[in-house]
């Protein structure tokens, strides 16, 4: 353990190496470390933001879903009401139409009956006249009793 000039040489080497490290080694590594730390911090922040966005979107979608359901229910209720209304209307129309047809038919039947009665009356009168003619041919003159016959015809 003797002291000699090695001491000073070592001293110089010491500073040269320290200078080199300071100049070429330390800055890039520390820069990389800092940048990575920043990246990780940014990433974490972005993840946090994403989580919040997701929560917001979930809430919004739930709201939209509920709203849609409500609207659909309302639409269905309206449609049902409208359908019932339409059925009622149709029923009323059908009933009116049926009444009208029945009334028409009744009137026609009545007319027909009147006409038939008229015809029948004519025919009966003709028959009666024919019968009477035949009866009276032997006994009386048709012309002499025509007024009586007319009266009878009128009473039929």
């Amino acid at each position, binding site marked *: *353990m003797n002291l000699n*000039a090695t001491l000073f040489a070592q001293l110089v080497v010491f500073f040269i190496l320290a200078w080199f490290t300071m100049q070429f080694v330390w800055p890039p590594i520390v820069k990389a470390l800092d940048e990575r730390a920043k990246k990780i911090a940014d990433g974490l922040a972005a993840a946090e933001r994403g989580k919040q966005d997701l929560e917001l979107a979930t809430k919004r979608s739930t709201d939209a879903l509920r709203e849609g359901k409500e609207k659909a229910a309302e639409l269905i209720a309206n449609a049902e009401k409208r359908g019932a209304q339409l059925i009622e209307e149709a029923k009323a129309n059908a009933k009116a139409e049926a009444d009208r047809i029945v009334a028409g038919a009744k009137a026609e039947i009545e007319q027909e009956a009147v006409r038939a009665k008229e015809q029948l009356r004519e025919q009966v009168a003709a028959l009666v006249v024919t019968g009477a003619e035949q009866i009276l041919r032997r006994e009386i003159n048709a012309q002499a009793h025509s007024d009586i016959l007319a009266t009878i015809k009128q009473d039929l």
Partner: protein
Amino acid sequence: MAAGSAAPTSGEYIVHHLTHLNSTGHAQKSVIDWSVINIDTMFYSIVLGLATVFVLWLAARKATSGVPGRFQAAVEILVDMVSEQAKGIIHSAESRKFVSPLALTVFVWIFFMNAMDLLPVDLLPKIGEMFGIHYQRVVATADLNAALGMSLGVLLVCLYYNIKIKGLGGWIHELFTAPFGSHPLLYPVNFVMQMIEFVAKTVSHGMRLFGNMYAGELVFMLIALLGGTATVFGFVGHIIAGSIWAIFHILIITLQAFIFMMLTLVYVGQAHEAH
């Protein structure tokens, strides 16, 4: 001992292994001789220093803020560790721009130099001998010059920041008024205390690392000597003791590198604090 001398004694073996390859070619005679330089220490510390900055640079070159590879992640863990420690100790971001890289370099560099202890003690010296290099010590931090050289570097950084933060006048004022207080009678006492503090910090900083590594190296040599007895006991003892010590030494080399780095940060941090 010189090559070719057959079967050195235990003492000769240890002394041989503790002799540096220096610019004179033989062991240094006086305790302090500034005309001598240890070639082996310089060689290994520079090579490992270059390896340190090269490895770190490799990671820095491709550093991306995206997904890191394993290598980049490993270096990042180191950088982050040093950076966190520096943030806790030195509150000036401006100073950290230099001191943090310095601490990182010191940590990795000392770790590499310490790790040379884990190579078999005779491996590199024997290879050296094949090329005519008869003395070699491969653990640079087990050389007091290297350890003190680095702690002296830290002292210079401390002095620089003392003057930069407090101003030359402020610092000199502090030298005479801290730690006991501002009173003319206390000026010399304060100054002496400050000087002792600086010397003690620097010497203990370097000595701690040197002592640990020197002792560790010595234990490895003793274990090698145990195996060198070429008996069954020696062989088994070498394997068991060598394994245990090497595993334990993994902790020591890391711990010593970490301690050196932490003390560097603490001392520089102290230079920032006004008393």
